[in-house]
């Protein structure tokens, strides 16, 4: 098994006593290399909590979380921070990029923070921008980019270096459907190139880009989609429905 993320019986309780709120209950989830998993559920179902625990931004109250073969609860705070910097990429709905830095500088930033020299970091950033079809925007500043371009640069920054796990929370935010689609195409192809991806969304059209959709309700995994039989299944239908 090549699970990059593995969650076993993970629960999360905020507060205690009478004020305790259970956000996640006994969640099991494995995400493998090359796989994009979407987490769907209504507000308050625990989607974002699941993502922050998978990204070691919060600790689980119970259960085991393994990222890249490391048990997160065994790691020191420093080691967790290193894991986040090196192995995990985050994409949020907005506020992703630093306004004072160009696209290439934004993408190179996590590598530089991890101690890689600025020239080497810049070269690797350019490589990712090229792979993702954004090479011509390397010098652009966030204010000069469209919303769709900003999100695609944010994805480039989330996958640069040796990242293994990509975590995205409503990554297409308020983008229109054409821009949302190009962001999803990129996310999907980034995963196919060797990352494990988890995306939280309430939007079924976005979730449909994932290889697997996991449904949360009241903090529990209640269902998930079966592996797709492929689009050929659609072609045999009656023409005149």
């Amino acid at each position, binding site marked *: 098994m090549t699970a990059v993320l593995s969650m076993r019986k993970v629960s999360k309780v905020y507060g205690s006593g009478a004020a305790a709120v259970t956000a996640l209950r006994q969640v099991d989830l494995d995400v493998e290399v090359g796989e994009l998993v979407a987490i*769907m559920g*209504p507000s308050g179902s625990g989607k974002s909590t699941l993502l922050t625990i998978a990204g070691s931004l919060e600790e689980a109250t119970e259960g085991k979380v393994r990222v890249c073969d490391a048990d997160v609860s065994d790691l020191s705070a420093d080691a967790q921070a290193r894991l986040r910097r090196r192995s995990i990429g985050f994409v949020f709905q907005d506020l992703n990029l630093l306004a004072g830095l160009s696209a290439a500088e934004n993408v190179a930033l996590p590598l530089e923070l991890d101690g890689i020299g600025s020239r080497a970091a810049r070269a690797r950033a350019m490589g990712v921008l090229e792979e993702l079809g954004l090479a011509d925007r390397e010098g652009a500043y966030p204010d000069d980019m469209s919303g769709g371009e900003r999100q695609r640069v944010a994805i480039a920054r989330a996958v640069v270096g040796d990242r293994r796990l990509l975590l995205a929370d409503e990554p297409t935010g308020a983008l229109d459907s054409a821009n949302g689609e190009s962001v999803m*195409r990129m996310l*999907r192809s980034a995963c196919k190139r060797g990352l494990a991806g988890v995306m939280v969304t*309430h*939007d*079924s*059209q976005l*979730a*449909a*880009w*994932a290889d697997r*959709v996991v*449904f949360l*309700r009241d903090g529990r995994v*209640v*269902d*998930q*989609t*079966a592996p*797709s*039989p*492929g*689009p050929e*299944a*659609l*072609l045999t239908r009656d*023409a*005149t429905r």
Partner: protein
Amino acid sequence: MSVRHALLALLTEGPKYGLQLRQEFEARTGDVWPLNVGQVYTTLQRLEREGHAESDDAERDGVQKRFRITEGGAAELDRWLRTPPGTVPPPRDELVMKVQVAVRLPGVDVRDILQTHRRQFVEEMQRYTTLKAEASPDDIGLGLVVDAELFRLEAVVRWLDAADARLLRQPLQPPQVPAPSAAAAAGRATKTPRRRVGARR
């Protein structure tokens, strides 16, 4: 979907044979709507009868007929392009009816039924999305058809979400069977105002 008008549209490019029309129709709708050849010929005959298309007069044995659009056909195509299709919902939406029935059945977990449907609709959306993801971005016919299906399915999923939220806010009480009233017992019609939603065809 109006096959009749789609064929008229293809004929605006010039005279065409039946088989050719079928191939072009399928190619332009991204091969998502296969069409059988019998349907093409019945539709062409109907267009001829209506005066919207005409075929070669001298039909010889073994030679395929070519069809061309008439002025009347062009006018009909223009009228169709500018007229919104009927937005009247079907008289009974099976899914809505199923959920209406489920909320009143004892021992049935309606939210579970909603989720079963949600999963299957999302699985269908995944198949369409994969079709779109793997197609060339230049395949506009396919893109248009797939988007239409995705928006239709998304609307159903959103209805399921709304139904779920509604049931969570107002859990249904077991139905109360009213005792027969004196009026009903006497055979008189009770005058309860009935709300009509949607069209009954």
